[in-house]
């Protein structure tokens, strides 16, 4: 059901969300990070060139409904398992960036019945080392300027002029921030049990990593890969925490190269 030609709307488990659907071919389910997803993002067209792209806006983000009962990433993982059932997806490539990567990993440890490939890009979600190591920068203790410095290869890519935006857009930004905190405030940006469950992932997995990321370290990404049997680690040099924004072309190219090869 088309809402405005760009976004469609879909109800799963009684929760109505927005979704971007574009292109044809094998399904590719793209799970956005905590900063949300712009329907005009170039990466969407790159991904839709070679796949049936399905990019839902998570419950609580954008204009998607926030059920009060959804309080953790687990709730989103089960929601997307149900969404894949509802759309009857088969052999889907599951791609997630940052928080979306965490959701994707949680989905894959529960069931990969509808997934053929998993791509985790600068994903949060695991506790890699000891309890006194801050593995994931505390984004809620950073100014926006500091966040951009850490998150982007080119910090200007994260700059926003709120005064020049329509209020509806600013509200979405505020809503995305609130939803991120709802799901990931504590334990902060990870599930303490996820790492010990990653061995259940049986599909080919790619850790795609924007190397300028200073929210996460490269070694965090390599630890993630090491916990998943056979997972590959591929760098993207000129991108930070959000490679789908800073290097959309290479992001899509690496994903399809991986799907073609594995």
């Amino acid at each position, binding site marked *: 059901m088309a809402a405005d030609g760009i976004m469609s709307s879909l109800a799963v488990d009684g929760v109505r969300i927005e979704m971007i659907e574009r292109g044809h071919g094998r399904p590719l389910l793209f799970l956005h990070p905590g900063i949300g997803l712009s329907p005009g993002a170039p990466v969407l067209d790159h991904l839709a060139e070679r796949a049936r792209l399905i990019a839902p806006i998570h419950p609580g983000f954008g204009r998607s409904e926030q059920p*009060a009962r959804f*309080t953790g990433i687990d709730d989103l993982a089960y929601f997307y398992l149900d969404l894949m059932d509802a759309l009857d997806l088969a052999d889907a490539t599951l791609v997630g960036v940052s928080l979306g990567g965490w959701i994707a990993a949680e989905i894959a440890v529960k069931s990969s019945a509808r997934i053929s490939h998993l791509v985790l890009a600068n994903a949060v979600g695991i506790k890699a080392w000891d309890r006194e190591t801050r593995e994931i920068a505390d984004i*809620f*203790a*950073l*100014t926006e300027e500091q966040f951009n410095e850490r998150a982007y290869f080119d910090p200007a890519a994260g700059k926003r002029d*709120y*005064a020049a*935006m329509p*209020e509806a857009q*600013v*509200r979405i*930004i*505020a*809503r995305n*921030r*609130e939803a*991120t*905190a*709802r799901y990931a*405030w*504590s334990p*902060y940006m990870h599930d303490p049990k996820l790492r010990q469950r990653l061995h259940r992932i049986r599909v080919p997995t790619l850790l795609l990593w924007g190397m300028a990321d200073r929210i996460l370290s490269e070694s965090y990404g390599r630890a993630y890969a090491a916990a998943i049997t056979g997972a590959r680690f591929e760098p993207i040099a000129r991108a930070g925490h959000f490679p789908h924004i800073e290097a959309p072309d290479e992001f899509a190219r690496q994903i399809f190269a991986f799907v073609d090869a594995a």
Partner: protein
Amino acid sequence: MMRVYHFTEQPYPAAWNDHGGSLRVNLPNRKCDPSTAADLYHRFYDEWMLADELGFDIMLNEHHQTATCMSSTVVVPLAILARQTSRARLLVLGYPIGHRSDPLRVAEELATIDVISHGRLEMGFIKGVPYEFPCSNQNPVTVMDKFWEAHDFILKAMTSHEEPFSWEGEFFHYRQVNIWPRPWQQPHPPVWSAAGSLANARMLGERGYVMAVLGSGYKTRPLYDAYREGYMSKGRPPPPPDRLAYLGLLAVAADEAEARRRGEIVAGYLRSGGIVWPPFRNPPGYLSVEENAGILMGRPRERTLTRDGRVVDMRSAGIQDLIDAALLFCGTPDQVYRQIVEFIDYAGGVGHLLSMGQAGFLSHADTVDGLTLFGKEVLPRLKTYPQPGAAAHKS
């Protein structure tokens, strides 16, 4: 009848000399000299004991990881003053119960304090200021759900007397709840909370709890009226003044110039209370999406009004504006009395004045002098001042 509660946040003033841009959350505690802190605690307790003798009631609070308030665990001063004072009501405003992982412990602490004080406890439960969330690590998005579950649990624990009960909620789990001691006051100590929005004021009115407001000055009346509407919507008569409280700063002295000098010191605390690393000022979900969008777009936030409708920012206003906005009661005893009475009449009745008579660098001698003057010359008159709205409740 008005009650006046002496209140200080128990600050550590030396920190203002070297705070590096943040007095809260991340101000390194190596800057806290435990010996200086000990002297300050004893001094503040002495002032509360004097207030008790002078006929004041007592208000206590807690904040965390901050030089603005060394009371990081409010049950400690409550317990000390429950034993060391004899007549004052002991108001905690508030206890941030949504930040506590164990409300059973809260119920036990408060019941114990109520018993030791022979039933003098007033229980104020609050959400907590934005800076509490990075300290407690409680989720600011869902904290009010947790707050209300804790509230429901604490009251049930205080009022269940026959056999242990079980609790399997969203946030808390217990199997055999049966607190010892049970509270002195029956069915439980009075419940207070604070409100800054009309919706919350109305909700507190519906519940009939004592509502405190702070920083609202001559914008208080709409909040009180919303409370009154909520109170009466449950089939009750208009609420008596003792359902409503107001927090203001107080600087009193025998002559006006000295009072103004003290007023500047006390106001300096207010003006500098917002010195905190910016990301900690507004955690996600603490304010609504609409409010946050407004902040991002640079829209000015709601401020306080003076009596004649001028907008005042309590973080930057001058002394006269603070007085005109009833954020600060300041002057000779007569002047302060008139300022307070004028506010009572404007508000339609204020049963409790929460009086911040010590703040920041205000010395022990100045605090004692102000308390004594107020206690002898203002307090007796406020206690007999005929409150608007009180007549209907003489029975």
